[in-house]
């Protein structure tokens, strides 16, 4: 792929990602409304489909209030950094065999871990720069949570790497061809690794039950307390995008990427592979996030860290060892 082509794809995919994030808000609102016996947005457009546009229009008119004592530069720049960092994660996702910006990057997964780990920084800076006690508490919680959950996230992410023998996203998907999706095969380690990875991704993206950095009943929005208008939206959109990208990463690492179930039965063409399968898997995993979000309560911050250090890290270490043994003995790598 030439540089110009991948630049073009990058621009298209990047703007598409923003749109998808906006409409995923609509999708979440509709889904949550049905869980709560409500109709959800109905007014703007057919079944409220144009609601994100209306929301965006409204938010653009809102005044951006910057507290007098805030660090103005950091306050304004942190949402942009958060959004840019999250968008950078999209670069290495292989949407299909042909669509993708840098799916063939040979350190694809490492890129995701590295940039994902950096994303705690804009969050923390946003909280710090607000000069608000609630935002500061949220920022501290965010830092503690992200740093802790980075460890089991990395360790459980190592399992598909071991199984596929590569950091390259393309090759991880290729290793799952023929129905050997890592969530199902080898039975055991893959599924457990998926569970761990998904759980840690929830914590990384500040979703319930791990949304303590912005616990709005305790900290009134945490890091986002003082961010108003468009910069607040960008900060929250970045979080949404983060959730979306983790769903896409899960689909890539554990659910065979662009491969459809048709390939299991030797079919070819539409049912066997394509962009639509990747998008479908991402959306289903994304909906699972909502479903969990609208059903569970949230943990306390100390319990959250306890879960991580007491259970998740030992479990993921053990899982990694088991997988390594599996790969050595069974697959004879």
């Amino acid at each position, binding site marked *: 792929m030439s540089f110009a082509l991948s630049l073009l794809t990058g621009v298209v995919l990047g703007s598409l990602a923003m749109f998808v994030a906006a409409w995923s808000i609509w999708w979440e609102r509709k889904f*949550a409304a049905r*869980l*709560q*016996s*409500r109709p959800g947005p109905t007014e703007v457009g057919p079944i409220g489909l144009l609601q994100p546009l209306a929301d965006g229009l409204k938010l653009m008119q809102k005044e951006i209030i910057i507290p007098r004592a805030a660090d103005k530069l950091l306050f304004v720049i942190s949402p942009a950094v958060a959004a840019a960092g999250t968008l950078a994660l999209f670069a290495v996702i292989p949407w299909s065999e042909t669509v993708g910006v840098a799916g063939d990057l040979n350190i694809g997964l490492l890129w995701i871990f590295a940039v994902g780990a950096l994303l705690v920084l804009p969050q923390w800076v946003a909280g710090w720069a607000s000069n608000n*006690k*609630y935002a500061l*508490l949220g920022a501290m919680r965010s830092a503690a949570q992200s740093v802790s959950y980075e460890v089991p996230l990395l360790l459980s992410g190592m399992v598909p790497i071991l199984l596929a023998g590569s950091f390259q996203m393309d090759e991880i998907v290729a290793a799952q061809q023929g129905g050997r999706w890592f969530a199902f095969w080898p039975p055991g380690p893959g599924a457990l690794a998926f569970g761990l990875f998904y759980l840690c991704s929830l914590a990384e993206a500040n979703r*319930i*039950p791990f*949304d*303590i950095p912005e*616990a*709005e*009943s*305790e*900290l*009134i929005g945490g890091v986002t307390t003082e961010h108003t208008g468009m910069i607040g939206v960008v900060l929250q959109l970045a979080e949404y995008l983060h959730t979306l990208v983790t769903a896409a990463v899960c689909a890539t690492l554990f659910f065979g990427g662009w491969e459809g179930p048709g390939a299991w039965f030797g079919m070819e063409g539409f049912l066997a592979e394509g962009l639509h399968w990747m998008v479908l898997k991402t959306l289903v995993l994304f909906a699972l996030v909502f479903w969990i*979000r*609208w*059903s*569970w*309560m*949230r*943990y*306390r*911050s*100390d*319990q959250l860290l306890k879960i991580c250090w007491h259970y998740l890290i030992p479990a993921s270490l053990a899982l990694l060892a088991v997988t390594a043994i599996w790969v050595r003995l069974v697959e004879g790598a």
Partner: protein
Amino acid sequence: MKTLDIGGVSVPAELVKSSWADPWLDIDDYDAESDLMALNMGPQHPSTHGVLRVKLFVDGEICVKCVPYLGYLHRGVEKLCEKLTYVQIPSVVDKNDYVSPMMNELAVCMAFEKLCEIEVPERAQVIRTVVAELQRLASHLLWVGTWGLDMGGAIGGGGTLFLHTFRERELVLDLFEDLTGGRFHYNHHTPGGQRHDLPAGWEASVKQVLTFIEGRLPEYEDMTDNRIFFARTKGVGVIDPVLLMELGVSGPVARASGIDHDLRRDAPYCVYDRVDLRVPVETGGDCYARFLVRMAEMRESIRLVRLLIDSIPPGPVVGAKMVKLPGAVKFKQKEWGSAYSAIESPRGELGTFVIGEPKKASPWRCKIRPPSYHLVSLLPYICPGEMISDIVVILGSLDPILGEVDR
């Protein structure tokens, strides 16, 4: 379990501590060395349930001292009562505890009836009991939902629980709308009886609603009784029963700490002496015990209404002495008189102490004893040592209504 006998009540021995947190802890929050942060929770905070301001001195996330400030919702109801007549007051006190308005009216009306010696007919007594229990059901439903909000967030699992309970509470409000024409401020009770008689077919719709709500209660337990909820509530905010008694806290919070006391059973009013009331008592003393007590109370309320709804006697709903002019209900005695009557509101003992001036139609002094005031006064004793997240949960589990605290 080991119990101690304190003031005639056996309370779980393990809950009785020798001391509780010092509410007057001397803290200099300007001391840079102390590493403390003064955090103002409220008056505009999502989980202070109204406009309560709680000043927290926190060390990291651990609270060291907690000072509640009241008065943001002070409307001078007691002063208004001095200027209004006995007939007018029930419509004003409706706004005190805005989650259970029926209870407010009932409390003041009972005190005025005691003071002015007004007879209440049989039918009105039974209707009072029925609407009181329905109101308790509605109030506890709201509590489960809003407590879910405290724990699960407005955009999260708590929001779902909140909307589910509001969906069911709406049915009870519809019943009240059928009965009184108001959805929230009913003005239903009056000294001497009720203003509105039951509409035709009301009993049948009550039974229908009760069946519906009873079927939905296990769903709330499904939503809540899980690992996360357990971790957030079990062992959090344990309250000493002795402290509760000294502070005058009653109701579900006291019953969750093992104090077996319920005015409906121990000092029966209306027709509670006719029904066999089963008072749920838990010995945990923590937030989870309060949840269990309130869930059990909802079931108990449903049972009580079912018992009573079919046996409402015929007759007038208002006594012969009921008159409707401004100065009609008078304290007729030549001497000064006073009366105190208390009911068990969803939050505890809701009492009215009224001093009657001779031959006057309005009270000299009308003191409303709200249960929520005592609940908020607990905070300085139990919050120190807890995390901010837990303080939100504890405050929610106490269920104070700020309209009632500030009056």
